[in-house]
């Protein structure tokens, strides 16, 4: 099993500096955004009690483009909460909103704020991660040119949420 170092920095030319994780992933882990296409064939972990669909309807203002097709993505509409996954700076837990078969929003329910550095990192990272998910869902891709951001714990929590969708 290869060791993967996924590290993220938000830099001021570049920006400021930010690192999210440096760790050995569990065997099931793939690169952050590349996890998403697996949603069309939910794994047995979809029965995990830690993955709890809230049953909340998708928020009305977020209806996606008419081109979306539930059958194409295999996602059920609704709101789904992932497990919380730890990283070096704290725990991350996300909730996804699926509408019309497409992910229309991702909310970070829990993210690191316990130390000033962690809080700063979260304030920079979470919006990027949100954008990244929405960008990446249409194709199996490792990297996006335009802007990208990968965090394993965010991706893992997202994956566990999507396993229910």
């Amino acid at each position: 099993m290869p060791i993967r170092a996924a590290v993220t920095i938000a830099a001021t030319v570049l920006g400021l500096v930010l690192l999210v994780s440096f760790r050995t992933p569990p065997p099931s882990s793939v690169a952050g955004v590349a996890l998403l296409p697996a949603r069309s064939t939910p794994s047995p972990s979809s029965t995990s009690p830690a993955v709890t669909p809230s049953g909340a309807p998708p928020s009305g203002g977020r209806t996606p483009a008419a081109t979306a097709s539930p059958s194409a993505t295999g996602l059920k509409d609704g709101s789904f909460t992932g497990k919380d996954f730890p990283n070096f700076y704290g725990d991350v837990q996300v909730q996804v909103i699926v509408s019309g078969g497409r992910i229309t929003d991702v909310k970070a329910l829990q993210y690191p704020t316990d130390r000033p550095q962690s809080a700063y990192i979260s304030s920079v990272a979470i919006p990027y991660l949100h954008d990244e998910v929405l960008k990446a869902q249409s194709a199996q891709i490792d990297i996006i040119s335009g802007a990208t951001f990968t965090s394993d714990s965010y991706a893992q929590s997202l994956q566990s949420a999507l396993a229910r969708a």
Partner: protein
Amino acid sequence: MGTVITIDVRDEDLPEPAMDAVFAWFHDVDATFSTFRTDSEISRLARGELREHRCSPDMREVLALCEEVRRRSDGSFDIRRGGGIDPLGLVKGWSVERASAMLETAGARNFFINAGGDIVVRGRPEPDRMWRLGIRHPEEADRVAAVLAVRDVAIATSGTYERGEHIVDPRTASPPSGLLSMTVVGPSLTYADAYSTAAFVMGERGAAWVAGIDGYDALAITSRRRTVWTPGLEEMMVRDQPGFRGDDRTR
């Protein structure tokens, strides 16, 4: 304003100090080249407190590279427009290229570094496949306009969508027209970064300009929503993607 840098290394046994050194490098680059920091070397140079020949070797190298691209692009790339000095259009790619060399020296063979869309890829993500790189659709943030299968190459994208209209034509002082985004692929990210900025400024003739530079290719998305790419990208293009919308090319 910040740029997010992602480093993904797939090799076993990469020593942790190697990653620490890369962090330290990006810290250094920021301290030297950030125009948002009044104490940076670039800010002192812009205020006239520092003469170019007194600058650090890194600064002089970057300024020389910027001048080279300015001449090659006939002024479409110019870091001194408006009286200031802003080498961001090249220094991001240059710093990532240097970081990539640091990782390779430390033994990494399969990785990518992505700094806000400026990307170096090396090797493969898994033994049986190549890295799949999405070119973000400039108008629909949740879609990709094209997907490339790549290895051992550098990719940079310029556009007006990511940070507002941050690119202006140095010769007219207004945002360029004709393109929504310009992606340049080639061996060096330093040049790919600067070329993507220059070619974006050039508009619809930008792709042809890039194709005329040995080793570099371009994928442009025009204001008329057409995807245009140069022949060298043909073999990298992944066509079975839901986001694939290409319907045109330059020859």
